[in-house]
């Protein structure tokens, strides 16, 4: 049963009409009133920057906060591969419905129909908007936009700018944001970290932020607060996230009443550069787009795998017939382009079976040789070269590969010291994206009035597994095209609310609580650094709440996390003081929150006794090792409510499929 706390507010009407009808009937705020309504936006990534620019253009007064030294450095900048949109420019059968269907199926039937359909509907306008801003997307010779394929789909709907799509989209949104900053409508607070929300009578009215340069705590009032603070993959310590990515903003909001949706839904990305040693501080993604042209394999024979692990032979020594292209073998219909969760598990399965190809035995090959020759042949034909030599084909083919993926190949070589044009890349799955996040309704409002959550930080559109190139789409959909409408429904009722004094007891109390938490961290005066604890937590999470989970491990993990958390609070050392630039203090606060979130992630994973999307419970699999969903018992969103002392109660939002017939997810 869906509990009363969880009204998703999906509009009535047919799927196709929900959003258009909503937009035409949502209450509006008149322009002069907008000028006296203040909106606080925490986060300047795709979601935050696009929301800030759009809301400011509408006339609202906006403040934006980010922890980096500039809004342009939000981690959206690192997205490589591309952004989906149902433009059907390739005439290959794409449509709003198909993008909607692929996203629901890709998410393993654990997302809301209404939200996802809206996402597919607005996807097309996102591309229009970005092009208007001067985002230099890849083009065909005729001047039209170019597309590529991504996993989990059979159409080409991904728009891209070389291997730096996120950078270009973010710089587009950042430009629009800076335009508003220049005109005085947005005030930017870079190097500021939000450390709590301020609720008054159950309504969110502001935040407490710390100026990271001076250490000063600040109070800010807003008629509405938008959290656009990105994902929490760093709960695992090692991930493809930036060093500063954190859960603090949404976690503090959670502790003040915002429900947390599906915390255990984590995406493990199949193609990342493997761990090289204990010093490892983060993992680098090799874009999914590489799977368009790279074939994934391991040796068929154990002795070959062993020889590779001991560095006695080179990959190219292994004969074609001795290679196991296991994705093509297991999933002939989608081959190397199966969704991420499927590809990651298949890699783990081969490595666990002893076929890993590097010294740790935790790596598989991503090989471009086959397509290098294929492209070489096409180029040779174009150039009229008859009977080209193999060397010529390789050279021509490498030119094409370089054009498509040059920066990724360079990045790979920098990190590993190996030239991927000559030898296959080695890759292994790594934590990448969190589908879970604050529970939000159709308006993107959390369970706390006036508090919204956008982008990766919310739980909304990707169910149990996100398809590649859909996060950029969602972040920009939320910021450019959803929140500017949905926030009107709330703010139209707020025009009478005068700014609340920053001396209001609720602000004073919230600031004092933040201060005492900081003092508490300094007071421990223990012996171990923050990183020491963070690495330990990460290992528990990766080993017991990672790619494969089971009840025994999850129960153990919960106990281990609780014990480690106790140690953290009794043996942590934070150097320096609170009133200065202090990176150790910043990290300490974030890791303290990861300790609590980590426990909840394990609880959620334990509760969900089925396998779906990125959540794979070993007890629930078919004989061939495929995920086994349980629609009868688990076709719901798990939304967790926090109670004092790390206690939680779960609420269920039933998922209703009126338009899609749910089925086993097959990519065979």
């Amino acid at each position, binding site marked *: 049963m869906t509990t009363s706390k969880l009204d998703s507010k999906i509009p009535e009407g047919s799927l196709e009409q929900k959003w258009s009808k909503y937009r035409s009937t949502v209450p509006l705020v008149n322009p002069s009133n907008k000028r006296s309504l203040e909106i606080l936006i925490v986060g300047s990534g795709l979601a935050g920057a*696009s929301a800030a620019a*759009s809301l400011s*253009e509408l006339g609202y007064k906006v403040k934006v906060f980010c922890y980096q*030294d*500039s809004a*342009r*450095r939000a*981690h959206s*900048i*690192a997205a490589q591969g591309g952004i989906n949109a149902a*433009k059907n*420019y390739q005439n290959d059968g794409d449509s709003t419905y198909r993008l909607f269907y692929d996203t629901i199926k890709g998410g393993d039937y654990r997302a809301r129909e209404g939200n996802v359909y809206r996402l597919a509907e607005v996807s097309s*306008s996102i591309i*229009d*908007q*970005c*092009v208007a*801003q*001067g985002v*230099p*997307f*890849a083009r065909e*010779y005729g*001047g*039209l936009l170019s597309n590529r394929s991504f996993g989990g789909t059979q159409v080409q709907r991904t728009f891209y*700018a*070389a291997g*730096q799509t996120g*950078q*270009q989209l973010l710089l587009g949104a*950042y*430009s*629009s944001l*800076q*335009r508003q*900053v*220049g005109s005085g409508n947005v005030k930017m607070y870079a190097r500021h970290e939000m450390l709590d929300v301020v609720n008054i009578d159950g309504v969110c009215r502001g935040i407490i932020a710390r100026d990271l*340069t001076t250490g000063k705590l600040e109070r800010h009032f807003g008629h509405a607060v938008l959290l656009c603070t990105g994902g929490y993959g760093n709960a695992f310590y090692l991930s493809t996230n*930036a*060093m*500063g990515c954190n859960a603090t903003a949404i976690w503090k909001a959670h502790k003040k009443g915002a429900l947390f949706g599906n915390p255990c839904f984590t995406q493990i990305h199949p193609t990342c550069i493997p761990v090289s*040693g204990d*010093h490892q*501080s*983060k993992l680098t993604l090799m874009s999914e787009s590489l799977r368009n042209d790279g074939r994934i394999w391991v040796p068929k024979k154990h002795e070959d795998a062993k020889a590779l692990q001991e560095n006695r032979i080179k990959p190219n020594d292994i004969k074609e017939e001795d290679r196991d292209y296991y994705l093509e073998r297991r999933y002939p219909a989608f081959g190397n382009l199966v969704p991420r969760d499927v590809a990651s598990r298949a890699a783990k399965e081969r490595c666990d079976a002893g076929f890993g190809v590097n010294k740790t035995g935790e790596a598989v090959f991503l090989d471009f040789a086959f397509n290098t020759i294929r492209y070489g042949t096409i180029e040779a034909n174009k150039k009229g070269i008859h009977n080209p030599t193999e060397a010529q084909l390789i050279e021509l083919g490498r030119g094409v590969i370089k054009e498509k993926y040059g920066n990724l190949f360079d*990045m790979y070589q*920098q*990190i590993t*010291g190996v030239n991927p044009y000559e030898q296959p890349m080695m890759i292994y799955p790594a934590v990448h994206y969190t589908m879970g996040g604050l529970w939000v309704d159709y308006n993107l409002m959390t369970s706390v009035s006036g508090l919204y959550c956008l982008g990766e930080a919310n739980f909304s559109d990707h169910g149990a597994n996100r398809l590649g190139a859909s996060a950029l789409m969602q972040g920009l959909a939320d910021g*450019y*095209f959803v929140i*500017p409408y949905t926030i009107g429904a709330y703010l139209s009722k707020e025009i009478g609310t005068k700014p609340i004094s920053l001396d209001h007891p609720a602000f004073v109390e919230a600031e004092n609580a933040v201060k005492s938490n900081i003092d508490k961290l300094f007071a421990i005066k223990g*012996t171990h*650094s923050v990183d020491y604890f963070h690495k330990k937590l990460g290992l528990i999470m990766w080993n017991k709440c990672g790619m494969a989970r089971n009840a025994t491990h999850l129960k153990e993990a919960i106990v281990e996390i609780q014990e480690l958390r106790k140690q953290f609070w009794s043996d942590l*050392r934070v*150097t320096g003081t609170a009133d*200065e*630039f202090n*990176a*150790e203090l910043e990290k300490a606060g974030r890791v303290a929150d990861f300790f609590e979130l980590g426990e909840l992630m394990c609880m959620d994973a334990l509760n969900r006794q089925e396998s779906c999307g990125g959540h794979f419970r070993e007890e629930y699999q078919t004989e061939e090792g495929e995920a086994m969903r349980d629609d009868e018992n688990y076709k719901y969103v798990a939304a967790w409510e926090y109670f004092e002392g790390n206690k939680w109660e779960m609420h269920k939002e039933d998922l209703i499929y009126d338009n899609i017939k749910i089925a086993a997810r097959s990519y065979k």
Partner: protein
Amino acid sequence: MEKHLNLTLKIWRQKNAKAKGNFEAYKMTGISTDMSFLEMFDVLNERLVNDNIDPIAFDHDCREGICGACSMVINGRPHGPKNAITTCQLHMRSFNDGDTITVEPWRASPFPIIKDLVVDRSSFDRIMAAGGFVSTNTGSAQDANCTLISKEAADESLAAAACIGCGACVAACKNASAMLFVSAKVSQFALLPQGQPERKKRVLEMVAQMDTEGFGACTNTGACSAECPKEISLTHIARMNRDYLMAELC
């Protein structure tokens, strides 16, 4: 193959903007050649924390060469000895056993030091706010394929737009000029039809802000482009100069 190095680091320490700074030396042993330069800093900072010494402050975030946060002058060169990479992409296999490595912050008066190796680059944001955009409100765009853009123009525009705003160009320049940074943005838009309506206004306003921030003049030494991790080309400066002249004339 992995090797291990013993090194001496000489690092700029400065408690805050007002304090006087100085170099401190740190001996490092057994540093794996597979480590990144910043991972070596992690090792050092862990040791400093264990010794109850304030760890070294430095900016970093993505650690994959795209956010533009990291910013160290290593042995006199912004982002270190190798071309076309950022500090976070530098790996220890680029150094030899026994090396002494000097590390300093960006030094330029429009980038005041905040602490140790951390500087304030908000002047770049203000230049962007002065004109680094196409004025288009959300929701008013036409269909994306209505604007045809040649592949060459799109590629060249992207090459300019690849700038990560790290400020290495300024740190490399003896005059602390920001011409490469500004011209990359001016050029990105000048090459596209979307950028035409505001082309003149943009260049005038961005250059005016650049001057207000106190960045120096360009004397064509080219150190900026040579040290740029994204290899932004000097042709963008030439294009901007031309645009600026045209804008001033008419």
